């Protein structure tokens, strides 16, 4: 059992590394279209997010529809740090690392604070509260203005003019226009490294005493409580780690764009749902599945670009068909029958 788990882990790492090497070879030989090149960092971002959410959904057993909100926090705090310290810290790598720590930390902090009251709720109520939280974050960031001049920092939630900056002052966060001029510090290599680190963290967490405590809460909270497991502590821990990974994904995302805005498209509930789709389609509880599903589903609309208007339609149909094929009891039965028929002749020989 132990060796099987280990094998499973190593396979996942090898798949990610192999995929990275193959892509790098294609990049070096110049066989990758610019469109696909632009997708490489988002692929890592979504994979990271899906891994984070899978920890929450698959191991903690709580449905969160607000992970885009935590990603948003990570993205904005990380980008804010990078923009404000662009002159002070010259080294790109060091600045990104610090931004990463700050973004991840802030997302984890918010995750922790929101989790304290919210994890008392169960199931769909938790889902709706996290969804609401994500929308609040997006909404607040869209009206947030932060600038700096010789008098220090100015903050407003109404308009840029209200900041009252002196001439020469700089607006860092400009409401709905977001943060502009974030240094391009992230690239595909950093993205893959982050995915590997996140996988390492979640695999170790779920395969530890702590991880088993978390899973026991998922399987039966009352039973877990009665054997002395501190339900609140482990729930908080699981949720916070999950949001921290989403925050890291946000930092990676932000440093790939020159203009960072909080639109419904990238940080709204649609994004949270998209991440959930990766998790469920990849297999709840399977981190490897999350990464693979995130990659396939992000690439699919681009690969279908030739079909222009019909691509999202086909995407939707594929999604429904895959869900029915994977999860419907009738489909599972049918699949097993076919498998049995294929396997039978072998047994006779």
């Amino acid at each position, binding site marked *: 059992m132990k060796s099987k788990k280990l094998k499973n882990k190593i396979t996942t790492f090898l798949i990610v590394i192999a995929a990275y090497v193959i892509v790098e070879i294609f990049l070096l030989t110049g066989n990758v279209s610019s469109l696909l090149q632009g997708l490489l960092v988002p692929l890592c971002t979504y994979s990271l997010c899906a891994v984070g959410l899978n920890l929450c959904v698959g191991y903690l057993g709580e449905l969160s529809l607000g992970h885009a909100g935590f990603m948003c926090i990570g993205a904005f705090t990380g980008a804010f740090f990078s923009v404000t310290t662009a002159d002070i810290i010259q080294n790109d790598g060091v600045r990104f690392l610090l931004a990463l720590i700050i973004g991840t930390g802030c997302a984890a902090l918010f995750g922790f604070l929101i989790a304290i009251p919210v994890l008392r*709720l169960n199931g769909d109520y938790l889902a709706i509260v996290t969804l*609401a939280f994500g929308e609040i974050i997006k909404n607040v960031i869209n009206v947030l203005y932060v600038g700096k001049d010789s008098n220090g920092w100015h903050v407003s939630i109404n308009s840029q003019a209200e900041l009252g900056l002196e001439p020469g002052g700089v607006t860092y966060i400009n409401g709905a226009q977001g943060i502009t001029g974030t240094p391009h510090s992230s690239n595909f290599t950093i993205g893959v490294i982050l995915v590997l680190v996140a996988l390492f963290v979640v695999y170790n967490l779920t395969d530890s005493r702590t991880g088993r405590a978390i899973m026991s809460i998922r399987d039966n909270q*009352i039973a877990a409580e009665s054997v002395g497991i501190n339900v609140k502590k482990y729930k908080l821990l699981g949720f916070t780690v999950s949001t921290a990974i989403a925050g890291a994904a946000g930092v990676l995302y932000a440093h790939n764009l020159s203009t960072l805005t909080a639109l419904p498209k990238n940080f709204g509930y649609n994004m949270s749902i998209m991440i959930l789709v990766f998790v469920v389609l990849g297999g*709840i509880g399977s981190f490897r599945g999350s990464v693979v599903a995130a990659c396939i589903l992000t690439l699919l609309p681009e690969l279908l670009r030739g079909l222009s208007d019909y691509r*999202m339609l086909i995407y939707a149909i594929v*999604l429904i068909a895959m869900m029915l094929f994977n999860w419907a009891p009738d489909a599972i039965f049918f699949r097993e029958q076919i498998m049995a028929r294929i396997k039978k002749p072998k047994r006779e020989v």
Partner: protein
Amino acid sequence: MSFIMYLINGISLGSVYAIIALGYTMVYGIAKMLNFAHGDVIMIGSYISFVTFSQMGLGPVPAVVISIVVCTALGMIIERVAYKPLRKAVSPLAVLITAIGVSYLLQNVALLVFGANPVSYVSMIAVPPLKLAGGELTITGITVITIVLCLVIMGVLMVFIKKTKAGQAMLAVSEDKDAAQLMGVNVNGTIALTFAIGSGLAAIAGILLCSAYPTLTPYTGAMPGIKAFTAAVFGGIGSIPGALVGGILLGVIEILGRAYISSQLSDAIVFAVLIIVLLVKPTGILGKPIFEKV
């Protein structure tokens, strides 16, 4: 005076939310699933009524009837094709994701058929505005119609559930599916009926929503859908009076928040109130407390 004006507008918007929330709450009560595609059924209903009324030139009554019939059929087809095979799936998330897939599907079908450009919806409700307090307070016809219609729908639905066999079957299925089946209730039929009613109401909600806010795009249904779902949770999901209370409170908070606090933060205010309510009363305002058995 302006406060009363905002209040009435809020109640009107809330009534639309309440009608949409009914669809969510009934489906949730019976099938225990979040029907994410409900908001998009609203959008389809609005487009159908737009095409039949504004483009084909049919009268308001046939347009409304056609819209309701199409949405009802659509709701039942979605349930049969996409949700029913997954009803006994291992994870309840499977049907949630499928609902999201259906939502994308409806949006993209609408995008292909009607295009991405917003169409300006022509209101088919020609009721003269109500003037109160010596002309100081003007309430538009659509506002009056929306509020009255919402109350009528609520009343009819409550009577339907209390007094008819089909309504009692709904209650039984929502209480315990297996026990209802043993008692001879047609569970599949009842669930299909619930989807039919919810989707029919979505058509009405779509017409009311677009009459008050006359811009129609393939994504029109998404945000009201989410808000109405929030309203359903707010009032206590699974409860029909809860949908009314939740919807109207949400509408009033949204309009008052937009008017007096910040127009840009109105959504944030709505969701913040939701979070506070759920933390104080975790099953919603009118929800029944859940007891956990070991």
